[in-house]
């Protein structure tokens, strides 16, 4: 299933925050959205998943999601959004409980996603016992459990320290290499964008518009820490964004 954004525009009252964004999200690819703070990248992600409605334009699903998909558009949040009163297993099975299936089937799905995210030994732990990186792994496992057609990742690594971020990027690449998934990945971190994105979409500052679309052809599994190619791309992205980021930083917040 592909996603097409068709001339999305949005305003809060008189303030126009987004203008004429059209974009195709091809299946099996990771599309990274980068831009200065306040450019509306997280808002755009909420439009794609149907948590908010744009003022103009529409989000289209091209084709039907596959049969066994339980929740086509599935989020991974920056703040993990785990239920603190449920164990790791409980948090994953939460999203399966509303779907009719036998309990053995549910258990086997939970087992499968926990082993894919290397969390098998932590099934009985409560979120408060886990580090930030582990919590985000649980959130990723939970997202995988519903077999999403598109994963909507809202700054998933931004709340983590830089070492944990490296580890999780490797994990995401490994997950994608085993079974390619479609993802829209919002980040302000250009290093993440060039490591994980097949396509990097650069948004301008408010009102958010597409400034440039960068295609990175190097296979994900060949991209490593400190790769000179990626560094070059990252520098290019930064030159695109620097002035905007500075202007965005100096802006007064009035919304």
């Amino acid at each position, binding site marked *: 299933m592909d996603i097409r954004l068709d001339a999305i525009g949005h305003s809060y009252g008189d303030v126009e925050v987004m203008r004429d964004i059209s974009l195709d999200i091809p299946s099996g690819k990771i599309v990274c959205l980068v831009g200065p703070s306040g450019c509306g990248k997280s808002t755009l992600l909420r439009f794609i998943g149907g948590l908010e409605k744009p003022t103009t334009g529409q989000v289209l699903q091209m084709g039907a999601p596959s049969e066994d998909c339980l929740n086509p558009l599935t989020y991974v949040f920056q703040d993990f*959004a785990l239920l603190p009163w449920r164990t790791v297993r409980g948090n994953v099975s939460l999203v399966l409980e509303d779907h009719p299936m036998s309990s053995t089937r549910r258990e086997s799905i939970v087992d499968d996603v926990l082993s894919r995210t290397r969390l098998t030994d932590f099934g009985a732990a409560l979120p408060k016992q886990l580090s930030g990186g582990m919590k985000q792994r649980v959130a990723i496992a939970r997202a995988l459990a519903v077999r999403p057609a598109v994963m909507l990742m809202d700054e998933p690594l931004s709340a983590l320290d830089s070492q944990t971020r490296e580890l999780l990027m490797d994990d995401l690449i490994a997950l994608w290499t085993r079974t390619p998934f479609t993802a829209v990945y919002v980040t302000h971190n250009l290093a993440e964008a060039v490591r994980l994105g097949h396509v990097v979409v650069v948004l301008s500052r408010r009102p958010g518009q597409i400034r440039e679309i960068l295609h990175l052809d190097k296979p994900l599994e060949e991209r490593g820490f400190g790769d000179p190619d990626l560094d070059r791309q990252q520098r290019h992205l930064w030159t695109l964004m620097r002035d905007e980021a500075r202007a965005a930083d100096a802006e007064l917040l009035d919304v």
Partner: protein
Amino acid sequence: MSERDAPSTVPFRGGGFTTRPYRWVGFAVFALLLVFAEVGTRIGFISPLTLPRPSDVLGTFRDLYASGMLWTHLAPSLTRLCVGALLGAGAGIATGVLIGLFSYVRAGLSPVVAALFPIPKIALLPLFVIWFGIDEGSKYALIAFGTFTPTVVATYGAVDNVDRTLIRMGQSFGLSWISIVRKIVLPGAMPGILSGLRISLAIAIILLVAAEMLGAEHGIGAYILEAGALFDLERLFAGVVILSLLGVLLSFSIGLLERRVLRWRS
């Protein structure tokens, strides 16, 4: 090397401002107060008219227990407390959750609750006697009404405080409305509801005495009021101690419940 350059330890200034559990201090303060009252009344610098001797109060209490009257008074009081508090807290939690979930209910009921909250419920006792009869009905109603309002306010505050990101997560995974309420909103509101219950149950004990002012033959409240009318300070204090113990017991059991239900909190 001059004296100014000599190494010196950095002074520690990070102490204080943290609470530590010193359980025995509470008991020590209690014991000290009791000893003070006992010694004072025995020596005579506290007149027996102003304060009964703690040992006499204990004696009264023992008589009460030995004669079997303790249970005669305690049983109806506990029944009133249980029925009244259960009705009030139950209705209060239900109303609070509805106010927390539905904007229309909130718009309609929160002013009503705000208007009911400051009414001294004791003043309404005659009204309840007319409405629900002089028997148990009016007593249940007074206690229920008194626990209802604080429970409502605590509950809808707790529902409001449930982490919105968790609710958004539930919606984004396509969870049904009832699942979101049952699995996200209610457990998330539980800490606030329980701490509200602490206050409501203390109010229930206060109102128990008020409820037994009219048309109660037995009951701790009736016992205290009768002793008060006769200026029988030993019996008055014996009754007050029972209520106080009841309060400690209730607060302790809510503490246990919190530890069980809220184990997930750090």
